[in-house]
């Protein structure tokens, strides 16, 4: 499968297979006017399969969000057809306004304007819990 070469843009590589579309939605890539390609189930030497996102524009990325999805994700910044930067996101201590608490008894379920905040409570197992009710993020 051929995808056009990026001249100035971002390649988000090593996304866990099957989570590319989730990341596409979280990053609100549907709102961009530039070319965006989601490649699912690409061959990966380390993991067997991976997803890749190619964005034909250099945009501000929420690295906390990328780190939450998987800190092994690689972000390649491309300028003039060359990779000028390669970054790995850190596992964030806190995530704001991205994932929503599913607990129907949580205060966020009845006070709609409250920002959904999740805190990292177990780094080893990458467990995030709602800052209000302690429900685990799924």
């Amino acid at each position, binding site marked *: 499968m051929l995808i056009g070469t990026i001249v100035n843009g971002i390649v988000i590589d090593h996304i866990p297979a099957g989570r590319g579309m989730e990341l596409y939605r979280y990053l609100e890539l549907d709102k961009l006017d530039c070319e965006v390609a989601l490649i699912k189930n690409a061959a990966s030497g380390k993991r067997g399969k991976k997803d890749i996102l190619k964005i034909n524009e250099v945009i501000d990325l929420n690295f906390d969000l990328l780190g939450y999805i998987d800190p092994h994700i690689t972000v390649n910044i491309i300028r003039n057809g060359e990779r000028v930067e390669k970054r790995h996101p850190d596992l964030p201590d806190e995530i704001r306004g991205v994932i929503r608490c599913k607990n129907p*008894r949580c205060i*966020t379920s*009845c006070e709609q*304007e409250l920002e959904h905040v999740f805190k990292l409570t177990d780094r080893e197992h990458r467990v995030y819990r709602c800052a209000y*009710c*302690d429900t685990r993020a799924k």
Partner: protein
Amino acid sequence: MRSLIDIADLTVEEIDGLIATAEDIIKDPDKYAEKCRRKKLATLFYEPSTRTRLSFESAMIELGGSVIGFSEAQSSSASKGESVADTARVISCFADIIAMRHPMEGAPRVAAMNASIPVINAGDGGHNHPTQTLTDLLTIKREKGRLSHMTVGCCGDLKFGRTVHSLLEAMSRYEGVDFVLISPEELKVPEHVRTDILNAGRVKYRETESLQEAMPELDILYMTRVQRERFISEADYVRLKDTYILTPDKLETAKKDLSILHPLPRVNEISVAIDKDPRACYFRQVMNGKFIRMALIMKLLEVE
């Protein structure tokens, strides 16, 4: 400015300090009669509570302070749709400290984030109830003379029973405390308690469905009510509500110095015949609740 939302907000040293202050209040209440003079406690209770609200109010009054507030959501601006954050900001203009009970989990945390005065979580749904835990700890300390090296049995609704979760969290920080968790399958402790406290390698625990089997080894028996208000299905509540009823015959194999605690109110899970048994501590526990809340109010108001 400090609030108390979760018992984990307090260090063991702070808990021990509060217990020491409470014991001093019990010894010499007159010394504390004017400590909070001209200070106001706002009790914001969005769901019914007799014990906790009156305990907070009497605590403040015995410290020489006064009390404002409401005891049901219908009589507050919440009925007009006001957010918890706005209510907390408004009440900060009137009072010096807030005690909040709310049916939604995390509501007191939201209040603490927005208030300019200390907020005490007086119970948020099935989540946390730190002052009940402080009450339980003071009671155990007074009954046993220590908070370490004992076997604590928690019996009944361990899924929705927030007092149990907070007690497990607090007691797990003391040395040599083993837990026996006694509940039907459907009311076992929730996943976050299991992973964060029980499986964190700090405590020894086992689970059983039989109160009788666990009884002989217990130093503390912490009974809980199966709470109707926490169930979405009435049928599930009816099926589980009578699972454990403590009667005198069930205490035959218990230790002579067992201490029976209950956060109250009870429905039928402890027979009234047990009330006369010296091992029943739950009414002394209520009294302790007032003293520990006095100590906590003083600490959060930074009253010397």
